[in-house]
């Protein structure tokens, strides 16, 4: 082996070892979730894995909280896509006065601290009867999802060559006809990635759900924390709940890893 190959393999070895170290805290939680309750405190790696903790965690209330998370995230994602995608298309294709201000507005929305939204929403929901409802949660998720959709989809539409739509116009298609037949299909991968990003952000929310829900619309992240308060720290159950909540996110992340940077820096990076 020459010195170049040795250097390359050293690099691989360090990278893999470092990854192992970095991921070990998360892997520990996964291990814990399969540990029998009798040796939950133990640190040995040899134990007989059990699904007991999952059975304990997945009782009626936790299952319901999972459904609330799912419905609120899906509803918010679909709504944000429905109204955000046409807006992104318009922003990508036409210049108009105030465009810069609109862009800045969207950026600040992405940046604003959640507490700033939560106080007015809390007061409004209390009087509107939206407190502790999945609909109320879906609405507040629109505050960050809509900004994300507009900004990332604008990037994807920018990448679609304009001449294709112009050809469709000349063939007699209207503005939205050309959008639906030409631009949207070409931006479809971006649309999927954006939708998944919205879903992940909503699914991961803890703060809004903590404040705006009680029991009827409690989401999965809040339900796990409740395991801590009422169950007197049943660690196995907590670990099983945590793993259940992170699993969908991990699967989706593999699908959208290429778009993560542009999604998370939406609005801050001019492309």
């Amino acid at each position, binding site marked *: 082996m020459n010195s170049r190959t040795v250097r390359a393999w050293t690099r691989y070895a360090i990278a893999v070892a470092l990854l192992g170290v970095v991921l070990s805290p998360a892997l520990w939680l996964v291990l814990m979730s399969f540990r029998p309750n009798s040796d939950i405190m133990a640190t040995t790696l040899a134990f007989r894995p059990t699904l007991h903790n999952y059975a304990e965690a997945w009782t009626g209330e936790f299952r319901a909280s999972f459904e609330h998370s799912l419905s609120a995230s899906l509803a918010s994602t679909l709504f944000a896509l429905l109204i955000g995608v046409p807006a992104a298309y318009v922003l990508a294709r036409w210049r108009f006065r105030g465009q810069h201000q609109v862009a800045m507005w969207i950026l600040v929305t992405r940046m604003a601290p959640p507490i700033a939204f939560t106080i*007015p929403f809390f007061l409004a929901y209390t009087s509107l009867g939206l407190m502790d409802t999945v609909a109320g949660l879906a609405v507040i998720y629109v505050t960050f999802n809509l900004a994300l959709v507009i900004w990332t989809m604008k990037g994807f539409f920018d990448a679609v060559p304009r001449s294709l739509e112009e050809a469709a116009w000349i063939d007699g298609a209207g503005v939205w006809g050309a959008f639906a037949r030409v631009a949207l299909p070409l931006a479809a991968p971006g649309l999927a990635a954006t939708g998944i990003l919205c879903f992940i952000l909503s699914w991961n929310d803890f703060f809004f759900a903590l404040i705006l829900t009680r029991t009827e619309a409690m989401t999965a992240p809040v339900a796990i924390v409740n395991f801590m308060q009422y169950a007197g720290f049943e660690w196995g159950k907590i670990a099983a709940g945590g793993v259940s909540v992170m699993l969908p996110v991990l699967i989706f992340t593999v699908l959208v890893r290429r778009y993560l940077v542009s999604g998370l820096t939406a609005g801050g990076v001019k492309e």
Partner: protein
Amino acid sequence: MATEPRLDLTAVAKTGSRGAANRAEARGWAREQRRALRWGLAPALSVLALVTLAPAVWLIVTSLTPLTPTEPGSFDFSEPWQNYQQAFTSPEFVRSVWVQIELSFVTIVLQLLLGLGIALLLDKPSKLLDTVRTGFLVPMVLPPIVVAIIWKVIYTPAISPLHRLAVFLGVPFHSLIGNADTAIWAIAAADTWEWFPFTMLMALAALQMVPKEPQEAARIDGAGPVQLFWHVRLPYIRGTLVVAALFRLIDSIKAFPLIYLLTDGGPGGATQVTNYYAFVQTFNFAYWGYGSAIAMLLVAGVFLFSLLISRAGGGMALDE
């Protein structure tokens, strides 16, 4: 994008058409385009106004009152600035700002160093390294509350593998989150773990944009890896690192689940950042007016940093 010529709304329809009928058609097409533009934008902007501008206005209004649900007459504007005065004279608020500055500074520096270091390690075209890179993204995409649970396990002596290891090695230590001197460092470590993938991704993207020629030239001139990094690659990626740091700064102001689950702002306020202080004042003590004022100050800070980002963003390497 910025250099693209403004699209003339009638350009397409005008092409090759001279007659009056065609001109009328062109005007009709321009009208249709303008209408389409409005219909595409209007729903999104009105919803955005409803869910962001309306709450913002309402937040300003409540921040000028001593509003609290237990006192019926508390929605009054006789002393509009009292919340702000109270904030700046409150030792607890001032301390929360310092805790915030400390936490933000420490985590951003650590995340930049760790993120950049790992980015340099992974910056070689290779299938294996690509897979490893995806693995490094895990902490960032996990639900923040799961991250908090992971670190709660690490920091709870009774079940912590870290504490077991320390006992095994003969260097046991007390709970890090239970001690006012170490709690902030424990939070900083967890936060660094959660967010270094972000700086890593940004650094990697920037490193891949560094042109090859200057690097080759420097290598031929005998530059070692350290000199190559310091004099050739770093100048190219500096802009991106600044933007990454600003993003982390803004997000660090919003840190919540880690503090909520690990320390609850304690011990004795040692980890109570301003965001958490606002949360406690508003939702634990029901000082809605005062909490609104603190939230307004946070928004003002975030707005300022966002302006900086949009300025710095233009100078990024990604721009080319």
